[in-house]
């Protein structure tokens, strides 16, 4: 009989007579040892629960006939033995039965079952020792005396070496994760919700890296190895980093640089005849086909990855009947255990307290129906906020349209008057500036409207804000696309329209980035 593990006493039974004075002591004792109360407390109950679970596993193939099942008042009690006295004797008996059951399971199932048991590590180790009959600690598996049949000695040791390096690689894989410590600090300081945003950014970055590598290898590197003939390179001025034009025009950055035919072609089309060079091995590389296949494969990979990750996260997080029972869920599930800073913990506590008070207030008010006047007021507020947001979108779109027309006229004039290149390039920056300003200011306006509206649930408020911002961005982007594509001919004749559009996009991205940086630095840090 193995020695009793330290701390084996069940937790003390409560004194409950003051709560239910009408029950006798015997009733209370029986109630206290009911399965519903002992599951969470007594180790004997856990052992017996897992004994029955392993017994069920073993007997799964052969079901006992119905006549043999013992009767009980409630069917659920058949699974558990009623423990009227959770003393040592019962517990040791249960433990022996559990050990016997564990011995009859295959070792992988045994270790999986031990893993999922809510017992302390010392008890699990002693259970494991007893059930597997091995010594104190895990011994190395007995090696077969000779090599496996059918393999030579060298192959055998090779296989062992490869397997051990593979396991070593797998175990060191988590430490290779980039930004592990930084993400942990973010989670500790700001909580799980901010951490999830940064995890999303990391996923996006890795995904873009994959697509970039594909394009780099198959399209960009090939073109860089066989550059086409280009007009004379202009000198580099500092403004190219902002405008993307000037000396950047005829480089690998834009579509106009890439050739539309086969690179490294052994058959060169001359002015009069086709000459094929013989005697040198050359591999032709068809650029249009390469581009088509690369883009096709990228889209395919994107589609597969998106569908897979969405289905997996939906399967993990979908819950039936999650709409009711807010209060208990909020109390038990919303505490963020990752947070390590005292000030953040205080913030979380204040937050939770406010949320609980609001929920309680709403529950109290639910029983009081809203008057007609209040309902009308609410409808008026909703109508006004939506009118304002849609009106602002319309105003922005019209502003973009008229401003782009105006800038186009200004650029035509300066091109005809042959003003300096610096001035011409600088005029290109005006439209991105205006659009970035709009993208910066309007979300703040929408969040102000959202706080004025005060939706019933914060989730609904978030969805409404996302809707409005998306609408603004999409409509402005649509107007810009119309503006670019309706002026297919570039300003100077040596550029194709893909390059012009590419340069415009580059300018927009750079200007947006600069504005976000300024907003973060000045807005967040200074305001704090």
């Amino acid at each position, binding site marked *: 009989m193995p020695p009793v593990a330290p701390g084996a006493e069940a937790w003390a039974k409560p004194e409950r007579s003051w709560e239910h004075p009408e029950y006798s002591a015997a009733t209370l004792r029986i109630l206290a040892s009911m399965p519903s109360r002992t599951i969470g407390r007594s180790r004997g109950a856990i052992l017996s629960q897992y004994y029955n679970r392993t017994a069920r596993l073993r007997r799964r193939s052969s079901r006992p006939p119905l006549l043999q099942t013992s009767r009980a008042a409630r069917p659920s009690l058949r699974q558990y033995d009623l423990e009227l006295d959770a003393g040592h004797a019962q517990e040791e008996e249960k433990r022996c039965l559990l050990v016997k059951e564990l011995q009859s399971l295959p070792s992988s199932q045994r270790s999986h079952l031990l893993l*999922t048991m809510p017992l*302390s590590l010392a008890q699990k180790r002693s259970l494991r020792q007893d059930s597997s009959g091995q010594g104190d600690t895990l011994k190395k598996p007995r090696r077969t005396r000779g090599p496996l049949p059918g393999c030579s000695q060298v192959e055998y040791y090779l296989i062992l070496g490869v397997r051990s390096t593979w396991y070593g690689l797998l175990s060191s894989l988590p430490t290779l994760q980039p930004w592990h410590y930084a993400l942990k600090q973010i989670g500790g300081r700001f909580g799980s919700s901010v951490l999830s945003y940064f995890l999303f950014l990391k996923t996006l970055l890795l995904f873009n890296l994959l697509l970039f590598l594909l394009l780099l290898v198959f399209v960009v590197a090939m073109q860089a190895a066989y550059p086409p003939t280009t007009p004379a390179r202009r000198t580099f001025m500092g403004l190219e980093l902002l405008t993307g034009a000037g000396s950047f025009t005829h480089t690998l950055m834009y579509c106009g640089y890439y050739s539309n035919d086969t690179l490294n072609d052994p058959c060169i089309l001359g002015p009069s005849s086709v000459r094929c060079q013989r005697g040198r091995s050359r591999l032709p590389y068809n650029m249009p086909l390469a581009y088509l296949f690369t883009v096709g494969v990228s889209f395919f990979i994107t589609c597969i990855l998106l569908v897979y990750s969405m289905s997996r996260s939906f399967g993990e997080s979908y*819950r039936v009947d999650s709409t009711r029972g807010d209060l208990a869920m909020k109390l*038990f599930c919303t505490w963020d255990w990752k947070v390590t800073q005292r000030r953040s913990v205080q913030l979380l506590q204040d937050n939770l307290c406010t949320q609980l008070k609001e929920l309680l207030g709403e529950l109290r008010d639910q029983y009081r129906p809203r008057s007609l006047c209040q309902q009308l007021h609410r409808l008026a507020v909703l109508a006004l906020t939506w009118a304002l947001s849609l009106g602002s979108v319309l105003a922005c779109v019209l502003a973009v349209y008229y401003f782009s027309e105006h800038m186009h006229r200004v650029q035509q004039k300066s091109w005809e008057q042959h003003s300096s290149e610096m001035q011409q390039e600088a005029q290109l920056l005006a439209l991105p500036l205006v659009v970035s300003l709009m993208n910066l200011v309007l979300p703040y306006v929408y969040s102000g409207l959202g706080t004025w509206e005060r939706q019933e649930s914060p989730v609904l408020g978030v969805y409404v804000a996302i809707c409005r911002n998306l609408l603004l961005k999409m409509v402005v982007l649509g107007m810009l696309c119309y503006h670019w594509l309706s002026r297919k001919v570039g300003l100077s004749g040596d550029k194709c329209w893909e390059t012009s559009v590419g340069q415009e996009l580059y300018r927009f991205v750079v200007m947006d980035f600069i504005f976000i940086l300024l907003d973060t630095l000045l807005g967040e840090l200074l305001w704090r």
Partner: protein
Amino acid sequence: MGGSASSVPPDLLGEYQELTFLTKQEILIAHKRFSELVPKEERDQILSARVPKDKVVTLPELRANPFQHRICRVFSTAEDGDDSLSFEDFLDMLSVFSDAATSEIKSHYAFRIFDFDDDGTLDRKDLENLVNCLTGDADGTRLSTSEMDQLIQNILEESDIDKDGTINLSEFQHVISRSPDFASSFKIVL
């Protein structure tokens, strides 16, 4: 910082990997952090040393946690009830709070942590203590008596299925299963 005198023997390491949800790296990191808590004279026998509760709560991950004392109580296997943790208790704690632990194990231990009087169920007093822990002890953040009564009344209405006035483990696990975020927020990483 001098290196620890002893490290985890490889066969014990394998056993810990099989019986907990921790990876080998996590066990080694836990060993390093635990040896920093143990006084210098006992560093040779880390595996049999016990660290008192006051030192355990100085860990940065537990320092600001309002449930630090409950965590030490639940995971401690000390016979004299002083809530000290051995290395295996420490590993137990990290295993339950790790990424790979199942939702069932997490909810089981969450129930034990929230059960302030260790009687196997969450009654009104436990729920009151829980709410006070979660909302903080500063003046002005605590709920008033009427709000507390209303809150506990509503919680018991929502989750007490057998209407005995307390929440047992199964009812608690039923509430937890409705929230998809519980497993990801019930995590402590070293």
